[in-house]
Protein backbone atom coordinates (compact mmCIF):
# COMPACT_ATOMS: atom_id res chain seq x y z
CA UNK A 1 0.00 0.00 0.00
CA UNK A 2 1.04 3.55 -0.61
CA UNK A 3 3.09 5.54 1.87
CA UNK A 4 1.72 9.06 1.71
CA UNK A 5 2.24 11.88 4.16
CA UNK A 6 1.08 15.50 4.22
CA UNK A 7 2.87 17.62 1.63
CA UNK A 8 3.75 14.69 -0.63
CA UNK A 9 2.87 15.04 -4.27
CA UNK A 10 1.39 12.12 -6.19
CA UNK A 11 3.03 11.14 -9.49
CA UNK A 12 1.88 13.46 -12.26
CA UNK A 13 -0.40 11.88 -14.87
CA UNK A 14 -0.13 13.09 -18.46
CA UNK A 15 -2.48 11.97 -21.21
CA UNK A 16 -3.38 13.36 -24.61
CA UNK A 17 -6.90 12.35 -25.71
CA UNK A 18 -6.74 11.53 -29.41
CA UNK A 19 -9.12 12.91 -32.00
CA UNK A 20 -11.62 10.05 -31.68
CA UNK A 21 -11.39 9.54 -27.92
CA UNK A 22 -14.75 11.19 -27.26
CA UNK A 23 -16.42 8.75 -29.66
CA UNK A 24 -14.91 5.73 -27.88
CA UNK A 25 -15.78 7.17 -24.47
CA UNK A 26 -19.35 7.89 -25.62
CA UNK A 27 -19.72 4.23 -26.53
CA UNK A 28 -18.05 3.01 -23.36
CA UNK A 29 -20.05 5.26 -21.04
CA UNK A 30 -23.34 5.54 -22.92
CA UNK A 31 -23.20 9.36 -22.97
CA UNK A 32 -23.85 10.31 -26.60
CA UNK A 33 -24.52 14.02 -26.03
CA UNK A 34 -23.66 15.53 -29.45
CA UNK A 35 -21.48 18.25 -27.88
CA UNK A 36 -18.91 15.47 -27.44
CA UNK A 37 -19.10 13.79 -30.83
CA UNK A 38 -20.46 16.25 -33.42
CA UNK A 39 -18.12 19.13 -34.30
CA UNK A 40 -20.79 21.13 -36.12
CA UNK A 41 -23.35 20.77 -33.35
CA UNK A 42 -20.79 21.77 -30.71
CA UNK A 43 -19.95 24.96 -32.60
CA UNK A 44 -23.62 25.77 -33.10
CA UNK A 45 -24.14 25.83 -29.32
CA UNK A 46 -21.19 28.16 -28.81
CA UNK A 47 -18.43 25.72 -27.92
CA UNK A 48 -14.97 25.85 -29.53
CA UNK A 49 -15.63 22.39 -30.97
CA UNK A 50 -16.29 18.92 -29.60
CA UNK A 51 -15.48 18.86 -25.90
CA UNK A 52 -14.29 16.08 -23.60
CA UNK A 53 -16.81 14.39 -21.34
CA UNK A 54 -16.35 15.81 -17.85
CA UNK A 55 -16.57 12.31 -16.41
CA UNK A 56 -13.72 11.15 -18.68
CA UNK A 57 -11.57 13.95 -17.25
CA UNK A 58 -12.69 12.94 -13.75
CA UNK A 59 -11.63 9.38 -14.60
CA UNK A 60 -8.11 10.72 -15.28
CA UNK A 61 -8.10 12.31 -11.83
CA UNK A 62 -9.26 8.97 -10.39
CA UNK A 63 -6.57 7.09 -12.33
CA UNK A 64 -3.87 9.37 -10.90
CA UNK A 65 -5.13 8.46 -7.41
CA UNK A 66 -5.36 4.69 -7.95
CA UNK A 67 -1.94 4.69 -9.65
CA UNK A 68 -0.50 6.52 -6.63
CA UNK A 69 -2.33 4.25 -4.19
CA UNK A 70 -1.28 1.02 -5.91
CA UNK A 71 -4.77 -0.18 -6.81
CA UNK A 72 -8.48 0.55 -7.14
CA UNK A 73 -9.56 -0.68 -3.70
CA UNK A 74 -7.76 2.22 -1.96
CA UNK A 75 -9.87 4.96 -3.55
CA UNK A 76 -12.73 5.63 -1.13
CA UNK A 77 -14.03 8.97 -2.32
CA UNK A 78 -13.47 11.49 -5.11
CA UNK A 79 -15.25 14.79 -5.58
CA UNK A 80 -14.61 17.28 -8.38
CA UNK A 81 -15.83 20.61 -9.69
CA UNK A 82 -15.93 21.03 -13.45
CA UNK A 83 -14.58 24.48 -14.20
CA UNK A 84 -13.78 24.67 -17.92
CA UNK A 85 -14.32 22.57 -21.02
CA UNK A 86 -11.66 20.04 -21.99
CA UNK A 87 -10.66 19.53 -25.61
CA UNK A 88 -9.41 16.55 -27.63
CA UNK A 89 -5.85 16.52 -28.96
CA UNK A 90 -4.48 18.61 -26.10
CA UNK A 91 -2.40 17.17 -23.31
CA UNK A 92 -4.16 16.91 -19.96
CA UNK A 93 -2.13 16.90 -16.75
CA UNK A 94 -3.28 15.71 -13.34
CA UNK A 95 -1.34 16.81 -10.28
CA UNK A 96 -2.10 16.28 -6.61
CA UNK A 97 -0.79 16.96 -3.13
CA UNK A 98 -1.54 15.17 0.11
CA UNK A 99 -3.34 17.70 2.33
CA UNK A 100 -3.72 15.55 5.44
CA UNK A 101 -3.59 11.99 6.73
CA UNK A 102 -6.12 11.01 9.38
CA UNK A 103 -6.89 7.50 10.68
CA UNK A 104 -5.14 5.84 7.75
CA UNK A 105 -6.93 7.94 5.11
CA UNK A 106 -4.91 10.37 2.98
CA UNK A 107 -6.80 13.36 1.62
CA UNK A 108 -5.36 14.42 -1.75
CA UNK A 109 -6.13 17.76 -3.39
CA UNK A 110 -5.85 17.50 -7.17
CA UNK A 111 -6.19 19.57 -10.33
CA UNK A 112 -6.60 18.59 -13.99
CA UNK A 113 -5.21 21.14 -16.43
CA UNK A 114 -5.03 21.60 -20.17
CA UNK A 115 -2.84 24.32 -21.64
CA UNK A 116 -2.60 26.08 -18.27
CA UNK A 117 -6.37 26.10 -17.73
CA UNK A 118 -7.78 24.12 -14.81
CA UNK A 119 -10.64 22.10 -16.24
CA UNK A 120 -11.14 20.31 -12.92
CA UNK A 121 -10.39 22.29 -9.81
CA UNK A 122 -10.81 21.56 -6.11
CA UNK A 123 -10.74 17.83 -6.65
CA UNK A 124 -10.52 16.00 -3.36
CA UNK A 125 -9.73 12.31 -3.03
CA UNK A 126 -9.63 10.02 -0.04
CA UNK A 127 -7.14 7.16 -0.28
CA UNK A 128 -6.98 4.36 2.28
CA UNK A 129 -3.37 3.67 3.25
CA UNK A 130 -3.82 0.20 4.77
Amino acid at each position, binding site marked *: MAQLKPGDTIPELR*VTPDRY*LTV*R*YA*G*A*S*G*DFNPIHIDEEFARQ*VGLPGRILH*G*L*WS*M*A*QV*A*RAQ*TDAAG*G*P*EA*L*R*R*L*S*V*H*FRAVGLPEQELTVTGTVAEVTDGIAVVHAVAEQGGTAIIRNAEAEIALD
Partner: protein
Amino acid sequence: MPVSTAAVGKRYPPTAYAVGREKIREYALAVGETNPLYLDPQAARAAGHPDVVAPPMFAVVYSAGALGPAIFDPEVGIDFARLVHGGQEFRWGPLVFAGDEITTAVSVKDISERGGNGHFVFESQSTNQDGATVCVGTWTNIVRGG
Protein backbone atom coordinates in the same frame (compact mmCIF):
# COMPACT_ATOMS: atom_id res chain seq x y z
CA MET B 1 -33.75 31.66 -13.01
CA PRO B 2 -36.67 30.60 -10.81
CA VAL B 3 -36.64 26.92 -9.92
CA SER B 4 -39.32 24.67 -8.54
CA THR B 5 -38.29 22.65 -5.50
CA ALA B 6 -41.38 20.43 -5.68
CA ALA B 7 -39.35 17.39 -6.75
CA VAL B 8 -36.85 17.49 -3.86
CA GLY B 9 -36.91 14.14 -2.11
CA LYS B 10 -38.51 12.35 -5.05
CA ARG B 11 -37.30 8.78 -5.60
CA TYR B 12 -37.19 6.85 -8.85
CA PRO B 13 -37.54 3.12 -9.46
CA PRO B 14 -34.23 1.23 -9.04
CA THR B 15 -32.58 -0.19 -12.13
CA ALA B 16 -30.42 -3.30 -12.37
CA TYR B 17 -27.16 -3.54 -14.30
CA ALA B 18 -25.30 -6.78 -15.06
CA VAL B 19 -21.55 -6.09 -15.05
CA GLY B 20 -19.79 -7.73 -18.00
CA ARG B 21 -16.10 -8.49 -18.45
CA GLU B 22 -15.94 -7.00 -21.95
CA LYS B 23 -17.82 -3.83 -20.90
CA ILE B 24 -15.27 -3.30 -18.15
CA ARG B 25 -12.50 -3.75 -20.73
CA GLU B 26 -14.13 -1.29 -23.15
CA TYR B 27 -14.54 1.30 -20.39
CA ALA B 28 -11.05 0.76 -18.95
CA LEU B 29 -9.39 1.17 -22.35
CA ALA B 30 -11.45 4.31 -23.12
CA VAL B 31 -10.18 6.01 -19.96
CA GLY B 32 -6.59 4.87 -20.48
CA GLU B 33 -6.37 2.24 -17.74
CA THR B 34 -3.60 -0.33 -18.12
CA ASN B 35 -3.86 -2.12 -14.75
CA PRO B 36 -4.26 -5.85 -15.58
CA LEU B 37 -6.81 -6.19 -12.76
CA TYR B 38 -9.29 -4.49 -15.11
CA LEU B 39 -8.27 -6.31 -18.28
CA ASP B 40 -6.99 -9.81 -17.54
CA PRO B 41 -9.18 -12.34 -15.68
CA GLN B 42 -6.13 -14.45 -14.80
CA ALA B 43 -4.33 -11.48 -13.27
CA ALA B 44 -7.48 -10.54 -11.34
CA ARG B 45 -7.90 -14.10 -10.02
CA ALA B 46 -4.22 -14.28 -9.11
CA ALA B 47 -4.81 -11.18 -6.96
CA GLY B 48 -7.66 -12.94 -5.17
CA HIS B 49 -10.61 -11.47 -7.08
CA PRO B 50 -13.43 -13.54 -8.62
CA ASP B 51 -13.05 -11.90 -12.06
CA VAL B 52 -11.81 -8.64 -13.56
CA VAL B 53 -12.27 -5.57 -11.36
CA ALA B 54 -14.32 -2.56 -12.48
CA PRO B 55 -12.33 0.69 -12.23
CA PRO B 56 -13.92 2.94 -9.56
CA MET B 57 -15.24 5.37 -12.19
CA PHE B 58 -17.11 2.49 -13.87
CA ALA B 59 -19.81 3.67 -11.43
CA VAL B 60 -20.75 6.03 -14.25
CA VAL B 61 -21.72 3.04 -16.40
CA TYR B 62 -23.79 1.06 -13.91
CA SER B 63 -25.52 4.20 -12.54
CA ALA B 64 -26.42 5.81 -15.86
CA GLY B 65 -29.66 3.96 -16.47
CA ALA B 66 -31.04 5.01 -13.11
CA LEU B 67 -30.11 8.69 -13.57
CA GLY B 68 -31.95 9.15 -16.87
CA PRO B 69 -35.54 9.16 -15.56
CA ALA B 70 -34.60 11.64 -12.82
CA ILE B 71 -32.75 14.07 -15.07
CA PHE B 72 -35.50 13.96 -17.71
CA ASP B 73 -38.37 14.18 -15.20
CA PRO B 74 -40.59 17.14 -16.22
CA GLU B 75 -41.32 17.77 -12.54
CA VAL B 76 -37.59 18.42 -12.00
CA GLY B 77 -37.72 20.75 -14.99
CA ILE B 78 -34.13 20.84 -16.28
CA ASP B 79 -33.63 22.99 -19.39
CA PHE B 80 -31.13 20.91 -21.34
CA ALA B 81 -30.07 23.71 -23.66
CA ARG B 82 -28.48 25.49 -20.69
CA LEU B 83 -27.31 22.47 -18.70
CA VAL B 84 -23.72 21.99 -17.57
CA HIS B 85 -22.28 19.27 -15.33
CA GLY B 86 -21.12 21.31 -12.34
CA GLY B 87 -19.68 18.73 -10.03
CA GLN B 88 -19.53 15.09 -9.12
CA GLU B 89 -18.74 13.04 -6.08
CA PHE B 90 -18.46 9.29 -5.65
CA ARG B 91 -17.98 7.39 -2.41
CA TRP B 92 -17.00 3.79 -2.94
CA GLY B 93 -17.53 0.66 -0.90
CA PRO B 94 -16.43 -2.86 -1.86
CA LEU B 95 -15.02 -3.42 -5.36
CA VAL B 96 -17.28 -4.34 -8.27
CA PHE B 97 -16.38 -7.34 -10.45
CA ALA B 98 -17.49 -8.80 -13.75
CA GLY B 99 -20.49 -11.00 -12.97
CA ASP B 100 -21.91 -8.67 -10.30
CA GLU B 101 -25.44 -7.37 -10.56
CA ILE B 102 -25.67 -3.76 -9.41
CA THR B 103 -28.95 -2.12 -8.47
CA THR B 104 -29.03 1.68 -8.45
CA ALA B 105 -31.67 3.92 -6.91
CA VAL B 106 -31.74 7.67 -7.56
CA SER B 107 -33.34 10.50 -5.64
CA VAL B 108 -33.51 14.27 -5.98
CA LYS B 109 -31.30 15.52 -3.17
CA ASP B 110 -31.58 19.27 -3.63
CA ILE B 111 -32.82 21.95 -6.00
CA SER B 112 -31.79 25.53 -5.39
CA GLU B 113 -31.08 28.82 -7.08
CA ARG B 114 -27.63 30.35 -6.61
CA GLY B 115 -26.28 33.38 -8.37
CA GLY B 116 -29.01 33.24 -10.97
CA ASN B 117 -28.30 29.59 -11.82
CA GLY B 118 -30.38 26.55 -11.00
CA HIS B 119 -28.55 23.82 -9.07
CA PHE B 120 -30.02 20.33 -9.40
CA VAL B 121 -28.42 17.71 -7.18
CA PHE B 122 -29.19 14.00 -7.56
CA GLU B 123 -28.00 11.13 -5.41
CA SER B 124 -27.48 7.59 -6.65
CA GLN B 125 -27.01 4.61 -4.37
CA SER B 126 -25.68 1.44 -5.96
CA THR B 127 -25.89 -1.94 -4.24
CA ASN B 128 -24.44 -5.29 -5.27
CA GLN B 129 -26.16 -8.69 -5.27
CA ASP B 130 -25.07 -9.24 -1.66
CA GLY B 131 -26.70 -6.02 -0.47
CA ALA B 132 -23.43 -4.11 0.00
CA THR B 133 -23.38 -0.44 -1.01
CA VAL B 134 -20.66 -0.26 -3.66
CA CYS B 135 -21.06 3.41 -4.58
CA VAL B 136 -22.95 6.54 -3.60
CA GLY B 137 -22.87 9.25 -6.27
CA THR B 138 -23.76 12.93 -5.92
CA TRP B 139 -24.45 14.50 -9.32
CA THR B 140 -24.61 18.31 -9.47
CA ASN B 141 -26.12 19.76 -12.63
CA ILE B 142 -26.22 23.50 -13.18
CA VAL B 143 -28.71 25.21 -15.46
CA ARG B 144 -27.28 28.57 -16.39
CA GLY B 145 -29.61 31.49 -15.89
CA GLY B 146 -30.66 33.46 -18.90
